[in-house]
């Protein structure tokens, strides 16, 4: 439970930090999806149950909705679905080392964007979102994924250190992340 709370608080702080940095550095498109990295870490950690992880995903998505001005529930749903997909993948793939962490960041950000886009396209009419604008936004999604790729390894290590410092994780530092048997 405490572990889920740490994920949630860290995710909230990172959402605000990324927004502040984007404002200071005048960045608009190349912003990392820190929530996607946290979701990946939670999904691939055996110490996090699927229910708590899903709750964290929904909460982080809800906070992203509030910050990004998206229709409330859109990113909450896409975060939840992405978490379930990542959890499914965590039983079949293992993440170890910097390169795979970066690749996981890239994949999870791309997955999150794809799911969000799919949710918005499906619900475009009831939410009053123009579909042409949604398709136009796909042109800059690769920058989003690239920024997440760059941020994922250090952020992953930071989460590891924080959980170790809070005695919420006792795994050896270089052990692979996966939830399979």
């Amino acid at each position, binding site marked *: 439970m405490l572990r889920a709370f740490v994920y949630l608080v860290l995710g909230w702080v990172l959402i*605000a930090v990324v927004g502040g940095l984007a404002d200071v550095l005048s960045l608009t498109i190349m912003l990392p999806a820190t929530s996607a990295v946290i979701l990946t870490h939670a999904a691939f950690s055996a110490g996090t149950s699927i*229910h708590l992880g899903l709750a964290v995903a929904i909460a982080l998505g809800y906070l992203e909705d509030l910050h990004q001005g998206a229709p409330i529930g859109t990113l*909450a749903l896409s975060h939840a679905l992405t978490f379930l997909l990542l959890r499914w993948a965590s039983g079949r793939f293992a993440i170890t080392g910097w390169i795979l962490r970066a690749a996981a960041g890239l994949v999870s950000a791309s997955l999150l964007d794809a799911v969000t886009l799919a949710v918005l396209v499906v619900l475009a009419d009831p939410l009053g979102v123009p579909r042409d604008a949604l398709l136009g936004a796909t042109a800059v999604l690769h920058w989003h994924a690239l920024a997440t790729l760059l941020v994922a390894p250090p952020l992953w290590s930071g989460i590891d250190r924080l959980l170790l410092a809070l005695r919420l994780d006792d795994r050896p530092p270089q052990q692979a992340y996966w939830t399979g048997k």
Partner: protein
Amino acid sequence: MALSLRSIRNGALIVVLLGIPVLLLRSTAQDPHGMSGFDRAVRRIGAPLEAAISYSMGMLGAFFERWVLQARLQDTNERLVGENRELRQRLRELVHLQEENQQLRRALQMREKVHEDMIPAERVGVDQSPFFRVVNIRIDRGREYARPGMAVLSPDGVVGRIDKALDDYSDVLLITDPRSKIAVELARTKAQGILEGYTEDSCTMEVSKDYDVEEGELVLTSGVDELFPKGHPVGQVVEIEQLVGDQQRLHVVPAVRFDRIDVVWVVLANAPRPDPRGEGEGPLSQARGLGPVK
């Protein structure tokens, strides 16, 4: 394959959790622009955190501006210094052009006052006395245009006359030179006389005591020497010396500052006639008027 109670419970919990965003979306679809009380409460709770982070980011931005992005300011500064240098250089050139323009305007005004044929000439050199007085100037007109004895004027007054005309330049005998003699008259009393060079910065003339001359009276060319055009300023009386007999000696300061001359005019109207032999090998004939002291 019987599903365990645990699996059913997990599945149900996941479905319930997934129902939360679905309900949120449904609520949003009903009122796309509205915010629920829960949304506002979450924003209010997060506001101090976001304010603190925004403040920290602002400090970080100031750090970047001051220390890291200072290099950019330095580049801008160097560029501006270079531009400033170029603009100063252009300003100097413009000031020089302005001065030149003013001189030329004055020269043209003088051309309207003097009706004789004249040709402009630039000063190309000066000779100075040990006391830094200009005793001789050199102009860029040679024997092709100038003849010894031709009058040389400036917008301020009489400069002198051509002393030597060489191939590319000519020397000008200033009115302060002891060899110089000019026919002049006083502007107020109309007393006529001959102005002779005296010292490096003054001339003298003698007139009858019958004329009530005052200090400060203007001295003009009289034109009787057929060399200088009549009525051109020559100088000003600064001292009156009473001589034995019926004469008085007037000390005159030239109207022209010889050290500030850039452009002069050589009067061609009273030029001597061309040498009938036409070869130009012999000595050049002089202009009419009062000849220099031999």
